[in-house]
């Protein structure tokens, strides 16, 4: 009986893992397709699509843009989120529940709506669409997340340490920078990297709020719409590989430390 259920469990898990990995395996496989159509049957293997994407200036620029937008917007979201979390956890503010609700509100709104709203307002302000506007949109999306993660990890036990530091003559900014931030580092980093992941792969806001300099998902989208070739698979595979490498590094450094 026990063996039977274990076998069934293994079978079930195997099937779901197959389902989960199917598109990724197919994606990588057909990135080596010899021929201009990335569809079955597999004609043969070639690396030329990888050469093609690395020599494609627009695509590489989009990759760089994506990295910059992801890192800068996540950093801004983390700083704003940290400061706000500190304010709400350490001080009493009037209508604090309402204000916290305001900060996390964008989390429950579709990114399409956030993007459309920003588009219409930016139009009034005269700020031209660019990577900056994409970054602004990404901060809006990521700020609630950063705030929630950091706020949740601000427990009472840190208050005593902060008070001790203050009693020893530390200024507010010193306490925040030298005591609070290092204690909360794991959750700040978690918030940061989660933001980077979201921003890196975000499409609709980046699509609506950019003009000529675009991020990678938008560039891939227009590649998909302007011709059929296995370069899409090649860039998809590269993105996957880079992200997994990044994940492994994270796993071995940041989270390993946290677990121990």
């Amino acid at each position, binding site marked *: 009986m026990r063996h039977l259920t274990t076998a069934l*469990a293994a079978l*079930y*898990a195997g099937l*779901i*893992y197959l*389902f*989960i*990995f*199917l*598109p*990724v395996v*197919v*994606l990588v496989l*057909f990135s080596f397709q010899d021929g201009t159509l*990335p*569809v*079955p049957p597999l004609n043969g293997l070639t690396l030329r699509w990888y050469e093609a994407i690395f020599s494609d200036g627009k695509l590489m620029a989009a990759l760089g843009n994506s990295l910059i937008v992801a890192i800068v917007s996540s950093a801004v979201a983390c700083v*704003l989120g940290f*400061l*706000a979390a*500190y*304010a709400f956890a*350490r*001080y009493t*503010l009037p209508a604090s529940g309402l*204000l916290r609700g*305001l*900060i996390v*509100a964008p989390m*429950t*709104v*579709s*990114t*399409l*709506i*956030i993007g*459309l*709203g920003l588009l*219409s*307002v930016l139009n009034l302000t005269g700020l031209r669409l660019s990577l900056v506007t994409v970054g602004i949109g990404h*901060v*809006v999306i990521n700020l609630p997340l950063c*705030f929630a993660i950091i706020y949740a990890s601000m427990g009472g036990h840190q208050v005593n340490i902060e008070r001790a530091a203050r009693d020893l003559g530390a200024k*507010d900014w010193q306490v925040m920078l030298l005591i609070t931030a290092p204690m909360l580092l794991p959750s700040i980093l978690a918030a940061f990297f989660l933001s980077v*992941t979201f921003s890196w*792969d975000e*499409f609709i806001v980046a699509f609506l709020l950019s003009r000529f300099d675009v991020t990678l*998902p938008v560039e*891939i*989208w227009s590649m*998909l719409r302007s011709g059929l070739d296995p370069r*899409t698979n090649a*860039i*998809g595979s590269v*993105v*996957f590989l880079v*992200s*997994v490498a*990044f*994940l492994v590094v994270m796993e071995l450094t940041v989270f390993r430390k946290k677990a121990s």
Partner: protein
Amino acid sequence: MTATAYERAERRKAWAFALPALLWTGFFFLVPFAYMAAISFWTRQGREIVATWTLDNYVAFFEKAHLFKGLVVSLEITAAVTVISILLAYPLAWIIAERVPKKWQRFALIMAILPFWTSYVVRSYSWLLVLSKGGVVNQALLWLGVIAEPLELSANRIGTIIGFVHFFVMLLTLTIYANLIQLSPNYRRAAADLGANAFQTFWFVVLPLTLPGIMVGAFLTFVLCIGDYITPQILGGNNELVLPQVIMLQLGRRADFPMAAALSLVLMVVVTLAYIACARWLKMERT
């Protein structure tokens, strides 16, 4: 320094810390949102956008069947995706939490969510390669002799749902697993002591205790699924349109920002209702 002066200084400091985030959200989220709500009462007349105050766009939404159907299609797909994803993800999360040895659990979990890190656009598109008539699944089934004619798995609702379920199975496995490992083994031991078998323990003890977690996951699925444009656009074959596609159509084809804004607000209201229902249920569960 008096106590009140000190308090005032403290309060000023608190505001200074909270204000950047509040202003950012206010200026780049609340103001755009309010502006969009206002625009939704304007109309596109001929080739001009006129700042009138009418309910025309909302009336059109209810009167024109092809607009209203966008919401119906969205709700149907989202409901199906949410239910299927939970049914598929729960057993996997349970297997990882209960049957996989402790030291391998983290690895098993990461493997279950690894494809998250492929580009979302590319992932939807590669489902097309998997599901199309000449795609991997049909080829395999034909070769095995399970089917005689290729199945129509893409360019329709099935394709959209498969694409969505793939994403949300990963997400829900993560959230449900997090829920399961927080359960104290004492509950199960207690149930076993009282004579419950494995199934009874699961049904009467484990499942009810993880229900709030499932609800939160379901809500997340609902919000992300109903607002998504990419998956139905790539996998649906335009055989029916979900609300976000209808919204993008207003923008892309007719340059009708007021209508797009009105439809966005409808979408927003639906999500809010789902949120209220979910919050209500969670509160009832707790008391």
